[in-house]
């Protein structure tokens, strides 16, 4: 992990930085820009977080604004709510996806609902950062894709970056948002790197077309983005890749326009298939694009199993071959004509 100052220079010089570095820079810039921003959670101050995302922040901004808390996730989110009621903007870290579950009641019963409960009088500009998903050989409880729990809760924004550049700008936007944001960080992409612009103007709630294509739309996000892009490159057909970025609210406009053009769609995510986020995407696409579709909307997802142990996780995670196989199943005309000829 580089220091904040080194990253600053790297960003300014247009050098590549990692997603971890971009997130660190975003926190640092937010703390500099707005005195009401606080960063707290387990091990975030002295250690700099188990993934070092908050490295150097306590030294730079002091232990009043960047601090370690007792080890209790409901306590972290519950006290963040009280602080936000008193005008502060907490950015809290849950150490791992499954370790956020003790905070579930505070998130769903209060964080998501207090604005509505008070007819807009109580505003909770809180960001909950959660490293999520697998692919790093983590043991049980360290690899969950928990997005659907949050996207099913009205009142929350759920955002997940797939690239370092987006990680920076989306986290800045999330901290500025007047709504609570569940910020899901795909931990297996923490060490991917690219040039990051601090000036990019990306809205918090829009998807982006990562790769243009005309035959099929691959809809994905977070940790599955890189795999999906790889599959798109490997396929002979022209695949468009959409990175959703905002899982809630959902950017219908970008997705629907693409699928109406291509006529075929596949959703790719790591999370289990049953009642997974892809089910909502497939339903929305089917409802809004039915007469444009040449084939059913398919899902390439994790199996409906508890997350596997590290030695078996490669069998669970969607890979390039599974995405290519799904593309092949989309009732292409040559297949249709073969069927007709056979009949």
């Amino acid at each position: 992990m580089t220091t904040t100052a080194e990253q600053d220079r790297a960003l300014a010089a247009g050098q590549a930085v990692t997603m971890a570095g971009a997130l660190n820079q975003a926190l640092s810039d937010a703390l500099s820009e707005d005195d009401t921003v606080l960063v707290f959670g387990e091990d975030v101050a002295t250690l700099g977080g188990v993934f070092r995302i908050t490295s150097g922040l306590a030294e730079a901004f002091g232990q009043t604004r960047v601090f370690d808390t007792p080890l209790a996730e409901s306590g972290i989110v519950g006290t963040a709510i009280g602080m936000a009621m008193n005008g502060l903007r907490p950015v809290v870290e849950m150490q791992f996806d499954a370790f956020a579950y003790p905070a579930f009641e505070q998130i769903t019963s209060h964080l998501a609902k207090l604005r509505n409960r008070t007819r807009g009088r109580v505003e909770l500009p809180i960001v909950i950062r959660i490293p999520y998903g697998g692919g790093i050989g983590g043991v049980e409880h360290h690899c969950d894709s928990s997005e659907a729990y949050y996207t099913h809760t009205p009142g929350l924004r759920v955002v997940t970056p797939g690239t370092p550049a987006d990680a920076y700008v989306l986290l800045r936007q999330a901290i500025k948002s007047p709504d609570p944001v569940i910020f899901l960080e795909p931990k297996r992409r923490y060490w991917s790197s690219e040039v990051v612009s601090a000036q990019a103007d990306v809205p918090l709630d829009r998807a982006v077309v990562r790769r243009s294509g005309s035959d099929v739309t691959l809809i994905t996000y977070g940790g599955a983005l890189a795999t999906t892009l790889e599959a798109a490159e490997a396929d002979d057909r022209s695949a468009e890749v959409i990175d959703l970025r905002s899982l809630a609210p959902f950017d219908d406009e970008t997705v629907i326009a693409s699928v109406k053009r291509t006529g075929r769609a596949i959703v790719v995510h790591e999370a289990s298939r049953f009642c997974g986020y892809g089910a909502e995407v497939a339903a929305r696409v089917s409802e809004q694009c039915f007469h444009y579709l040449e084939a059913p909307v398919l899902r390439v997802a994790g199996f409906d199993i508890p997350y596997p142990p590290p030695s078996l996780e490669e069998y669970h995670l969607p890979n390039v071959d599974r995405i290519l196989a799904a593309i092949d199943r989309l009732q292409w005309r040559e297949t249709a004509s073969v069927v007709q000829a056979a009949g």
Partner: protein
Amino acid sequence: MATSPMTPECLLPGPTPVALLDAAGQAIPGDSLDMPGDQVLLALYRMMVLGRRFDTQAIALTKQGRLAVYPSARGQEACQVGAVAALRPQDWLFPTYRDSIALVARGVDPVQVLTLLRGEWHSGYDPYDLRVAPQCTPLATNTLHAVGMARAAAIKGEDMVALVMLGDGATSEGDTHEALNFAAVWKAPVVFLVQNNGYAISVPLAKQTAAPSLAHKGIGYGVPGTLVDGNDAAAVYAVVRRAVTAAAAGAGPALIEALTYRVEAHTNADDATRYRSREEVDSWLARDPVTRLGEHLGRRGLLAAAAVAALEAQAEAEAAALRQRMNSGTRPDPADLFRYVYAKRTPELRRQQHELAAELADLEEAGNPS
């Protein structure tokens, strides 16, 4: 005292609850706490009389079908009024659904107190007007909000204390543990007031905890615990006032357990005869908090018969006004369902709002054929 150097012993509650008045309203000598001044005692009495009349009116409104549900605070007037009177205007109150009398004592409009229980909206008042958080329904979750509010005040250098109310059942919830721990580690200016009314719906305290008292739990967190007679408004006021003053001076949090009794059932939907005896209820009615303070004031010549009559007339007038206003309620606008989910409505919520509006327009057309 909370400000003395911390030894394990000074975190423990005394062997008996702190009390300033006995059940007959006689002053109890010898306690370290001073009896509140006459004006404070009169104010406590006044707020308890008005609060009790509000409570009986709310019960009546429930029987008439005007409220969806009402959890009565009858019997707990001394806890709720004593605590609220001990707060300063800049302090925050974090109440539960059973703290209606506390809200009325704080000055929240009675109709707005009942908005939630009437089923009109989830909360009826602006929390920032009188620094009262929305009535909290999930147990113990508000303890953490109070700690966060208080911690933020300390960070910002504000002179403010947060008082959170919870019940005996809520002390079993994990959030109470986390809140006491966070508050102590942060030395946050928070007062935890546990109204131990004997029952969590039907479950008695003996099935809730094996601790010697709920106030004893404080020592495990490094928080001083105090046990107080919760039917003695003077004692509750004095104990909470001491805790608020100490917290404001930087001494950190305090845990207060007020021993009281829920005279009514859990709510109108509950049948308390299934789990407690008439004799038990009667024994607590004999320790009534309003009568107790009234006796004391009368004995000291502070409460003339004319003043009592005037106060009762005021309580009746307020109850009549509440009845009147509850008759003329308006239905909330269905469009409000979509307005406050996010700071700005999302495209999807705008679409759904139009969907509902079209449905309602169709219904109206069908109901009013032109």
